[in-house]
């Protein structure tokens, strides 16, 4: 039954889509050659909007590939993440968004079968070069996960965890950072009277904001958000989105999201990925309103995915 629906969806897309694709990309461009290329495992150029070229990049990804054993999950991805901006990774399930995100702070190292190709650079320092200290690298990158994962300790200890593992013992420093981070994550007012209670007693949305506070406590050069709202209710989601809005500018954020509206609301740039490849990458408004590729339009308008 699903198959039948998909079939009709595909058929119905064609006629409506043809003019728009022609409008943006010119009549000479063959429609959906990208998906065909992807399916045939042919190389193709990702569509990267020129406005990105003027940005200062905090993170540069260069021809990055990743394999789980024999299966290739990421294909020669090249992109830059602009400094002080919010970049969203979108794409259907299994397209490699999260894998790419977790490659940035080398969380994939925890899986034995992973091999990589290509490079990544964080403010010019190679991430995957031999001899890079993974621990030191991760200290420069903050990460927030899909499900809130506060540690089994007090709210205070959760926030200052990064400082604790660096061996910071000065109470004044810890308290200062704790307050600044909780304020930054918009949790200070709710949590200031219960700093020494277990973090696990917070609500789901509060826990996720706590995780953001924990991530920004170490003043990361880039903040990775892996579908930060997927386990939250709409109200909590709204608060996190507002928070991302506030963090914009002070932090460079790379986020994965499944939610088109969220990507369009919160991000400055959006990258569309499909089956392990970067398809189109540009300013969010352009990607959503007038994408250069018909495939991107199909996805952002909900015709598939």
């Amino acid at each position, binding site marked *: 039954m*699903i198959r039948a629906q998909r079939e009709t969806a595909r058929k119905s897309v064609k006629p409506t889509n043809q003019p728009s694709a022609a409008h943006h990309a010119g009549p000479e461009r063959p429609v959906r050659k990208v998906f065909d290329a992807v399916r045939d495992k042919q190389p193709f150029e990702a569509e990267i909007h020129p406005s990105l070229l003027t940005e200062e990049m905090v993170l540069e990804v260069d021809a990055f590939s990743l394999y789980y054993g024999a299966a290739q999950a990421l294909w020669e991805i090249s992109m830059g993440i602009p400094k002080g901006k919010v970049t969203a990774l979108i794409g259907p399930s299994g397209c490699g968004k999260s894998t790419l995100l977790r490659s940035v702070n080398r969380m994939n190292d925890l899986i034995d079968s992973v091999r990589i190709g290509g490079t990544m650079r964080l403010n010019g320092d190679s991430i995957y070069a031999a001899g890079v200290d993974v621990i030191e*690298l991760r*200290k420069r990158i903050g990460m927030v*996960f899909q499900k809130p994962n506060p540690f*089994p300790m007090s709210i205070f200890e959760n926030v200052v965890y990064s400082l604790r593992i660096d061996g910071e013992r000065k109470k004044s420093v810890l308290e200062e950072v704790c307050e600044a981070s909780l304020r930054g994550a918009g949790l200070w007012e709710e949590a200031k009277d219960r700093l020494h209670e*277990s973090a696990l007693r*917070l609500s789901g949305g509060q826990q996720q904001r706590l995780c953001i506070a*924990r991530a920004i406590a170490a003043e990361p050069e880039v903040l990775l958000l892996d579908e930060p709202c997927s386990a939250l209710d709409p109200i909590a989601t709204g608060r996190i989105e507002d928070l991302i809005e506030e963090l914009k500018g002070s932090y460079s954020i790379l986020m994965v999201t499944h939610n088109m509206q969220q990507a369009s609301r919160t991000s400055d740039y959006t990258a569309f990925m499909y089956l392990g490849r970067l398809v189109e990458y540009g300013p969010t408004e352009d990607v959503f309103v007038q994408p250069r590729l018909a495939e991107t339009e199909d996805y952002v308008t909900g015709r598939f995915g």
Partner: protein
Amino acid sequence: MSELLDAPVSTKRYVRRRGAVRATSLFSNGEPMVWLTGGALGLCVLMIVGMLCLVGVQGAATFQPRELVRWTTIDGGVVLGEVVEVERYRPSDAQLELLSEATRAAARERLLAQGGEAERRLVRTENFELTGTHYTWVSDFETRERTTPEWALSIERREGGPFYGVLRGFELDGQRVASEPAAAWTLLEEHLPAVLERVDARRAIEREEIGRVNRAMETERLAVRRAELEHGLGSDAARTARELFSAREVGLKTEFERLRGEIEALDRQNSRYALSVEAADGSEQRIPLATVVRAYPANRLDFGDRVSIYASRTWEFLADEPRESNTEGGVLPAIFGTVTMTLVMSILVVPFGVLAALYLREYAKPGPLVSFVRIAVNNLAGVPSIVFGVFGLGFFCYFVGASIDELFYAERLPSPTFGTGGVLWASLTLALLTLPVVIVPTEEALAAVPSSMREGSYACGATKWQTIRRIVLPRAMPGILTGMILAIARGAGEVAPLMLVGAVKLAPELPIDGEAPFVHPSRSFMHLGFHIYDLGFQSPNSEAAKPMVYTTTLLLIGLVVLLNVVAIAVRAKLRRRFQGAQV
């Protein structure tokens, strides 16, 4: 997605069978399963509760003061004692034959009137030196009269077991100063506390002062021996040591004599008092007050007296040392030994088990070797505990202990210091025994720590060890404590291996005491579990020891429960800390 689109779809569809189980049937409602599962649980609970009730009731009744009853049999015999047990039975003719001819007919008649059934009582008669027995059966058809003599006295003696008799008088310096029971009782109550105090003082001198002198003597002797071993028999050093020894010996000997004199003085004072008691057979017995631990007129007690006797006996049981080859007195050394051994065992086994589990779960690469080790650890839990005892004896006592003795305690040889059973070796053996009990729950607890928490920690830049120490271990702590609780329960109740590696019937000294260096890991110790075995099966009079077996069992169960409750309370506290929306 594309694969999904192109996948061929099978046209054959599965049709569910209907009507195989009717919705109204007994099975679909689960009724029989409820009965089966509930019944199984009920049976388990019944057995456990039954056992606990038996131990509880029997154990609690041990110290209750009982009435002293005197029966006169139709043959003219007299029995005086406490009724322990009542039962109905059908006497055989042979039993009637035992009666004298004159009374046999009357007895038979009475038996017939009762339909051939008789009631008999097991009476604890004691007075072992007179009767040669502790218990006797009294059947109703052979008794003529039952009385409860007002001044029947139950006397607990330091040696020879209890004595039951009727109070007749009180002697002072060999002179009878009271012939009336009431007057004698007043005098007894007046003098007994002072006598008991002197007995305690005498024991303190024997134990502490004389013990100190003996130890000093032993130290001097060992110093000579050490000098001889190190420098040779004829060396100057050995000669000076020997001279020093003789000089010191004189001082110590006079000290010893002085203490003996003190003891004799106390004994002389105590020997002035004696009780005169009429035993069941009518003979009058003289009982020196110095031998009395406790005496009470069993048939004259009101409720308050009963409670106070019960309390005093219970206190003696908990806080005193055993007498009469452990069948009387207290079990303090055994309690102390059990607790010490269990605590030392926990301190040894928990860190080791946790470290081993950490390696297995966190560091080792999963593979056949790790699986094999895991299976081996699990199987270790199934090895009979006596095997561990044999291993402990062979490895810890005879190998490690003997080596330590040769290296550090050569002057004491051939008498072993560490080369024999002791509290340290017993704890180590039990730690080995309970290792799987700690490793298995700890590993499970480690595996149950969500990977999201570990990832969160790694993402913060924590190293593996920091993650383990700060995230994984605290989160797994309740599970680790579960392992510890199980280990304590297993270890505290284990007896078989202890018999080989250090538990003894009677340990003169505790493993921890006031004598430097205060902790004596090489000392053998008493253990409640072993005490139970010893009372029930090794004592000269196991029937008399039976109540103590129950009481000691009750105490051991109570002790294990107490240790567990403490551990469970700690675990509950930790759990509360980690409690939250997401667990």
